[in-house]
């Protein structure tokens, strides 16, 4: 088996799930929290993978600070996604 202590399967599952939620939630604040959760679970995985330096940095910078910066941006803009998407991304067209 490839798993290290087998708890990692569960954490990977939760991490992917929070990523899906982060992308699908309409409330941007919730989405940012989901993103921070992905970062936190990833930092836990880094710890399992014997990378404590990276785990610390990811927790401090990836989860906490970038989450904070996102929240400030939401505070200065708006909190909810608006309408349904219809066309492909706008870089596809010239």
């Amino acid at each position, binding site marked *: 088996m*490839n*798993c*290290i202590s087998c708890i*990692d*399967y569960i954490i*990977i599952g939760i*991490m*992917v799930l929070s*990523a*899906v939620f*982060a*992308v699908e939630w309409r409330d*941007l604040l919730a*989405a*940012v929290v*989901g*993103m921070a959760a*992905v*970062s936190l679970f*990833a930092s836990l*995985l*880094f710890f399992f*993978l*014997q*990378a*404590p*330096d*990276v785990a610390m*940095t*990811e927790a401090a*910078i*990836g989860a906490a*600070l*970038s989450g904070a*910066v*996102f929240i*400030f*941006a*939401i505070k*200065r*803009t*708006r909190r909810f*996604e*608006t*309408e349904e*998407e*219809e*066309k*492909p*991304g*706008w870089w596809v067209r010239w």
Partner: protein
Amino acid sequence: MIEISAYYFGAIALIMIGLYAVLVKKNLLKMLVGLSIMETGVNLLLISIGYINGKSAPILSEGVGPKGAVDPIPQALVLTAIVIGVATTAMALSAAIILYEKYGTLNIEEIRRLRG
């Protein structure tokens, strides 16, 4: 069927979810959340490449010899990549704030329409 480890699977899944958000979503902040998730996925991929079964962290203090540690290079790379990711995110968010101040929306279709 190809067989890959759970960590690779998780990392690739994060990359794909992030890419999906960037390609499909219309809200700028949502796209940036996607980019951020993608970056986390890439970092996880790099770290799991450096992992070696049964070896411990590359801090050679007590009881860990040069033969008993995992590969330190990917960890150093990811340290750099995380900081770069946060820098990009901060830049992108301030551009988003300007866009919102000018157009009053974060929806890219709306912005396009308002710009004419």
